[in-house]
């Protein structure tokens, strides 16, 4: 049954891809076909993978072609199913949203091609999560990268878009290269490309090889996940894509990196050496902190969200790192807690970041700009979008009682528990990481005050913003699905946590939910009973109930009564003639204190030019420019690019341009490989 459902989902997607491409001359039909197929395929995938997740069983599917070396083997185990559920929920909401979002593009863009690529991206993602053969995995991985590339450059007439697409493609392939080497090393050790033959294999290799393979996979998947310092493509590529694609990219495509790490670190490796977890934890902290610090400096709404993806990947990796460390120390229960925190945050981030990107899409479509400084006052013109975006902002800031709070709380508990697991001085890294997580979360809250308040509140800062119109019903429905998801995953934490039992059983051999859910399913606790810290409790449902009761009993009646006593009046404008949008605080001004405090990192540069006509006291025009340094681009990738270009220049000599010479090269290579093969 699960096999049929899963495969029919894939077939629906692929049929939709072909059909919408065939119908490209009829944009309205192509749009409906493409989005319906995406929605239907997602729902089928959701049912199939949810069934696997709840039953905890594993379904293996062998496609009836291929040969023994390159089997097209699919395996839906709980870990795969979990990522598939994440994919399906997000993709269904995005498909719903796309019905309305793409409508504006009808006649201007090739919606047939869009339908094709999106319905190619979704099955490739589902197969990345389920492929159980390295060859098949890499094929799906590559299709995913190419489909993403074409979706990113969908608005390809802009130079910037094409450049961002190229950067994505190059970085993505560099990552795939690392993965290929990693898989080949594993395959040469096991003699098969099948994932089941890799189970716990990596840990039986010599330490040096083991470490090298670990790094290959960490950085290979890290490129896709947007791990610092491999993140540079992410803030370029995600914003230029159409917003429904950005939602998928940030929500789920980067999670393939997380899935890959989970698969390799918890399936192919047994208990790893301590340094591996420590490295992941450290990279997680760096990604989280740098992601949010650079997000604060953005006033391009979509770039800001893209930087936050890097931050959240960092938070997920902190959980992963802790889980790896606990696994090395033989603390299976704590490892389960940390893994649950990381995976919970993975799902949460897909939901709220998807929501925020969809909200940003509606805003950008209504105002025709991504620059926050040109928005403002949209809460009156677009009330539903504003409410959904606000819920997403509260969730991503980790504030109770929504879902971001639950997973961040679990991460804190995992880090705190880590302090008691070892006696060495290294245990200090847990509370330090925890305090930096606190800094990250607080900075994220500051950033989302800006990201919500500047576009949505106060007075409109441009004509477009003043005349913005609420988005269509389908778009609102798509956002509403994800907003409800944020609430449900927050309030229903105690019902959601048991889902992880089958995953932790599969990867770590323990079931943690019985220890995590307490007080008759009302509260969540971290009482794993192994670390020094038994953990406190939280009850998001209880908090929500308190707010609801207090609101109904006091806020509503009193607010209604006070309303009769209230009048609307002008805002204090220092006696100037009327408040205008020019008086408002801007996004740049809002983050100015942080720009000054962290100036050692940003190295801000600003340029002010004033033009005078009569006297320097009365400038006729002022030109202001401010930018911050991009250290990774300038210090790391700039020199690297120069080296590569120089090397390429030197290699020009062997490129004669004659086909005969190239044939000779191929022949020589073949001979050498054959010789190598015979000797080996």
């Amino acid at each position, binding site marked *: 049954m699960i096999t049929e459902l899963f495969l029919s989902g894939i077939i629906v997607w692929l049929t939709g891809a072909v059909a919408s491409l065939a119908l490209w001359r009829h944009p309205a039909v192509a749009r409906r076909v493409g989005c319906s197929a995406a929605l239907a395929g997602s729902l089928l995938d959701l049912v199939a993978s949810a069934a696997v997740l709840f039953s905890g069983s594993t379904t293996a599917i062998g496609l009836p072609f291929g040969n023994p070396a390159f089997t097209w083997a699919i395996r839906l185990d709980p870990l795969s199913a979990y990522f598939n559920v994440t994919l399906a929920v997000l993709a269904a909401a995005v498909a719903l949203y796309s019905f309305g979002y793409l409508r504006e593009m009808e006649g201007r863009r090739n919606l047939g091609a869009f339908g094709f690529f999106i319905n190619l991206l979704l099955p490739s993602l589902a197969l990345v999560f389920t492929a159980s053969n390295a060859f098949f995995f890499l094929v799906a991985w590559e299709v995913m990268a190419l489909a993403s590339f074409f979706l990113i450059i969908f608005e390809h007439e802009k130079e910037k878009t094409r450049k961002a697409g190229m950067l994505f493609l190059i970085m993505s392939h560099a990552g795939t290269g690392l993965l290929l080497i990693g898989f080949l090393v594993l395959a040469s050790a096991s003699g098969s490309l099948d994932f089941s033959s890799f189970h716990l294999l990596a840990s039986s290799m010599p330490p040096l090889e083991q470490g090298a393979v670990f790094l290959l996979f960490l950085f290979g998947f890290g490129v896709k996940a947007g791990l610092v310092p491999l993140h540079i493509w992410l803030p370029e590529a995600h914003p230029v894509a159409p917003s429904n694609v950005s939602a998928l990219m940030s929500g789920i495509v980067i999670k393939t990196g997380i899935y890959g790490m989970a698969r390799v670190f918890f399936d192919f490796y047994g208990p790893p050496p301590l340094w591996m977890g420590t490295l992941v934890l450290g990279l997680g902290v760096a990604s989280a902190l740098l992601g949010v610090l650079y997000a604060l400096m953005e006033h391009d709404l979509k770039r800001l969200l893209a930087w936050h993806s890097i931050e959240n990947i960092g938070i997920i990796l902190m959980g992963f790192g802790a889980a790896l460390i606990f696994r090395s120390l033989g603390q299976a229960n704590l490892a389960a807690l940390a893994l649950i925190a990381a995976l919970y945050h993975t799902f949460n981030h897909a939901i709220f970041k998807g929501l925020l990107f969809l909200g940003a899409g509606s805003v950008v479509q209504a105002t025709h700009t991504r620059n926050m400084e040109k928005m403002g006052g949209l809460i009156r013109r677009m009330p539903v979008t504003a409410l959904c975006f606000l819920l997403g902002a509260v969730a991503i800031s980790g*504030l*109770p009682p929504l879902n971001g709070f639950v997973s961040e*709380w679990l991460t804190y508990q995992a880090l*705190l528990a880590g*302090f*008691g697991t070892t006696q060495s*001085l290294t*245990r*200090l890294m847990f*509370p*330090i990481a*925890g*305090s*930096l997580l*606190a*800094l990250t979360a*607080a900075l994220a*809250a500051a950033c*989302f*005050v800006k990201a919500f*308040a*500047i576009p*949505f*509140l*106060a007075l409109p800062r441009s004509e477009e913003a003043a005349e913005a119109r609420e988005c269509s019903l389908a778009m609102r429905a798509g956002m509403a699905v994800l907003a409800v998801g944020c609430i449900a995953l927050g309030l229903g934490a105690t019902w959601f946590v048991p889902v992880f039992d089958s995953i932790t059983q599969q990867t770590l051999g323990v079931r943690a939910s019985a220890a995590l859910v307490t007080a008759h399913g*009302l*509260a969540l606790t971290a009482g794993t009973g192994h670390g*020094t*810290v*038994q*953990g*406190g*409790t*939280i*009850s998001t449902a209880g*908090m929500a109930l*308190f*707010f609801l009761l207090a609101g109904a009993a006091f*806020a509503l009646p*009193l*607010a209604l009564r*006070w309303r009769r*006593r*209230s*009048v*609307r*009046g002008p*805002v*204090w*404008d220092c006696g100037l003639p009327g408040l205008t949008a020019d008086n*408002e*605080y801007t996004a740049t*001004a*809002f*983050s*100015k*204190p*942080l720009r*000054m*405090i962290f100036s050692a990192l940003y190295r801000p540069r600003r340029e002010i030019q004033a033009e005078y006509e009569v006297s320097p006291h009365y400038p006729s025009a002022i030109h202001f420019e401010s930018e911050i340094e991009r250290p990774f681009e300038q210090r790391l990738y700039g020199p690297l690019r120069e080296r590569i270009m120089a090397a390429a220049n030197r290699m020009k000599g062997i490129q004669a341009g004659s086909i005969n010479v190239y044939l000779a090269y191929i022949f020589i290579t073949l001979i050498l490989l054959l010789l190598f093969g015979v000797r080996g």
Partner: protein
Amino acid sequence: MIQRLIENATQLFLLLALAPLVTGVIRTLKARLQTRRGPGILQPYRDLRKLFGKGMVIPETASWIFTATPWVVFFSTILAGLMIPMVAAKAPLGLFGGVLAVIYLLGLGRFFLALSGLDTGSSFGGLGSSREMTISALAEPAMMLAIFTVAIGAGSTGLTEIAGAAIGQTWRFLAPAQMFAFAALALVLIAETGRIPVDNPDTHLELTMIHEAMILEYSGPYLALVEWAASIKQLVLMTLLINCFWPIGLQPTWFGFGALQGIGWLLAKLLLLCCAIVLLETVNAKMRLFRVPELLAVAFTLGSLALVSTFLF
């Protein structure tokens, strides 16, 4: 069940009733120390009564965020207040969350307050929001380190467990780790409650105010709610500080005479902390905004020292 209700109701009453008093006591003591007469310790109650009776002006530019914010701030502060041990080590709503939930609930209130500052479109509101979010973000890591130190000692982030573990160890606060953590948390308390040298609660000078700038456009009952919530938050953080580090007189559970004794001790310790705050506010001048990060860096260092000393001692 009945017992639970009584506990919650008592603590709720204490929070609502004591918070303005603490503000009043601090103001009066400060006035006396500066050889002024001061308005009397009951002035905050009179202010609240007056404000609740007034009508209000809501800015034309404001959205529903502006009217929802006072409620969100008020209720989230109350909820946080019910999660801390006040009279006895047992926190009435301890099941709903421990110290992390308290911090994040206060963060929820601050998030909405900052939104409402920007909602009016006045530059003062934006200025206050920007500064408030900056300072609170920088205070966070120091606070977390101090709290981790305490939580590690108690083996839980639940406040009932933290306060419970401290009972009977009257002189524990002399341990280096405790002293460092206490100092770190005290500095954070000053920053979080907007007191000198970080912010001046009495000022309405445009360029220096932080909290006041955010709520500049509130009037009437909504201003009363926001002010009340601010004083409750101050009480919550002060209580947290004294009951986690200096649990003398704290009862393990709520029971009859013990509860009364607990309230007595609470008042006495609060008064002592008020005196310390007043002294600190009087001998210090308000810092320039860009000196505040240095103060918070000191707090962070103290927090780190606290952690290292748990390891050493």
